[in-house]
């Protein structure tokens, strides 16, 4: 009995000590940062809750925010990675409110369920800027503004490029046989880009042979494309709703002994894609395996920085702020496209 009491005392001591030592680790790891925080006490504090680090696009997006909202520019950024969980993002926003940040920037993982916590931010008088995805809230006053991409416009640009390409190379609309590798169903990017394609198919009289979701991944893109190639013999255009799906489609096309390229009247299969944020995608444009990419600009940082500095001066931003986006192609037969009386130059990387 004595022995066991002795043992329990030892265990208790060990556990307490380990608790303390772990605590010390946190302290020492952060002491440097605490000092730098105090130094920049006059700066604007921003809490940024990011979705996670699931794709290249997302990482570039995060880096852009960190760079624009740096201490050198007079900001103190608190970055929080939500690890794809809404629950984590809700906790993060509540923490930001307690930390009395000046602004909250939120890249929501899903579009729903933000009413409660955004109302809490509003009650505390903290403006919320949304980036990338939108949120479904009844009260639009719950957020100050939204910064992101116009997915439908991206889709329209790529479709218009295809139309101009057909005109320039004297290809009849009825010879265009398209398959669509959709993104994750229900994602804003998928909805916008698919809508544009459907409108263009109706408008120009192309044939849309088939559609299936590739979940924005290379593996799924390859699988879907392989299925399409078995099912349809006359595919000559693939509309991939992001770069990764396009890489997968290229794999599948080459595995089937065909070639990805622009010469669609002579057996080549043309690949259209979106994002264009990685070097790999731009290289595929240069070597002609991807014919055209509608850029989805991940560099939201500068725009958010502008909005915040305007808000500081009392200038109210537009509710929806779209970032500028290019359209990439190595083909020289189309120089510009025009949509809604605005002309866009084709960028050759």
């Amino acid at each position, binding site marked *: 009995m004595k022995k066991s009491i002795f043992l329990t005392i030892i265990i*208790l001591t060990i556990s307490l000590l380990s*608790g303390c030592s772990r605590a010390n680790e946190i302290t020492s790891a952060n002491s440097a940062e605490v000092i730098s925080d105090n130094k920049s006490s006059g700066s604007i504090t921003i809490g940024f809750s990011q979705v996670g680090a699931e794709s290249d696009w997302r990482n570039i997006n995060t880096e852009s925010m960190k760079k624009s909202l740096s201490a050198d520019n007079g900001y103190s950024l608190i970055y929080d*990675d939500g690890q794809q969980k809404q629950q984590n993002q809700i906790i993060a926003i509540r923490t930001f409110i307690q930390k009395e940040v000046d602004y909250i920037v939120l890249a929501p993982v899903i579009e729903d369920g933000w009413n409660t916590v955004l109302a809490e931010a509003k009650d505390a008088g903290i403006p919320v800027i949304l980036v990338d995805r939108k949120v479904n809230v009844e009260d639009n006053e719950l957020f100050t503004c939204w910064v992101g991409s116009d997915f439908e416009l991206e889709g329209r640009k790529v479709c218009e490029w295809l139309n101009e390409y057909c005109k320039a190379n004297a290809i009849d609309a009825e010879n265009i046989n398209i398959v669509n590798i959709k993104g994750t169903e229900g994602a804003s990017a998928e909805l916008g880009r698919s809508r544009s394609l459907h409108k263009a198919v109706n408008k120009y009289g192309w044939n849309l042979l088939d559609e299936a979701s590739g979940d924005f991944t290379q593996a799924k893109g390859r699988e879907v494309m392989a299925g399409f190639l078995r099912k349809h013999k006359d595919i000559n255009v693939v509309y991939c709703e992001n770069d990764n799906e396009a890489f997968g489609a290229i794999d599948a096309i080459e595995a089937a002994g065909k070639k990805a390229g622009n010469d669609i009247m002579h057996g080549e299969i043309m690949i259209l894609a979106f994002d264009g944020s990685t070097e790999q995608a731009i290289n595929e444009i240069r070597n002609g395996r991807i014919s055209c990419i509608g850029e989805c600009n991940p560099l939201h940082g500068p725009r958010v920085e502008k909005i915040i500095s305007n808000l500081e001066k009392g200038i109210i931003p537009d509710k929806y702020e779209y970032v500028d986006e290019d359209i990439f192609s190595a083909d020289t037969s189309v120089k510009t496209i025009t949509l809604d009386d605005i002309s866009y130059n084709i960028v050759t990387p």
Partner: protein
Amino acid sequence: MNIKKLNLNSHTLLLLITIVLFIILYGLGCILYSNKGFTHLQTFLNILITNAGLICITCGMTCVMLTAGIDISVGGLVAMDCMLIAVGLNKGIPAPLMVILVIVIGILFGLMQGFFVGYLNIQPFIVSMAGMFFTRGMTAVISTDQVSITEQSSPLYYAWANYKIKLPFGGYINNKGVYNAPYIRINVIIALIVLIAIFFMLRHTRFGRNLYAVGGNEQSAAMMGLNIKNVKLKAYTLSSFLCSIGGICFSLNTMSGSVQQALGLEMDAISSAVIGGTLLTGGVGNVIGSFFGVLINGTISSIVKTNGKLASSWPNILTAALLFLFIVIQSIFAAIRNKKMH
């Protein structure tokens, strides 16, 4: 006599360690981040609001673990509950009816799991794993979309979720000059009621004592004439029932249904119970400990988020370290107990 005394000792000691650890962690947060609002009463209340669902679920998990079982279906069940509530409310079913429906489904689901574990004597891990796959699958069958609960879909449910119970003390004026009164939400009240009810059930009812008896030593419990099958059936039913209540609390916090919701929640519940001093081998544990286990997990995540510069993987690593620590302590206790018995 000797055995009983030792059991009680180790039991209270594990609880004590948990509470002391919580106080150390929270005190540390207050000292380190007093200038970042960690000392606000609301920081603590936020831990309660965000983890209200987890508190209910961990109470159920503790009861199951007392019988030396485990229930990993809870995350899936929460996702299914949230989805059911979201879809049901959007179809115009009244909120009270939806709440009752979810609870009834939870009880039926628990009866089924309890029957398999208790009467067919199948491994609890396997049964509840099947339950997890079933509930996750059913969530996707109900809808693969993200369904949100808006004011239009159910004004009553919306009002519940947004109702702030303001406390008359502990407020502060933030840097924008707005007075922030501390508040809790309805789900915290639900969670605390569940916690107190289960605490008294374990202490003062025959069923509560039976749970300890079954987990402590199944054979001697059987020899004493205990209906072990029935106790296990009830334990799993209770777990799923509490999980459904937790699902409602969770839904009140997120106001949406999605297949991705509550991923890994079962692991959070188990780790909280273990940190709270519940033995995986059964027979030892207490919901108050589990409650502090949830608070410790919440505090870790709060500290990391308040710091703002640590990577989000840190809560996981710290939880892992704590779990390891507690498992080591527990195995030492188990060894002592075995030695004394023989």
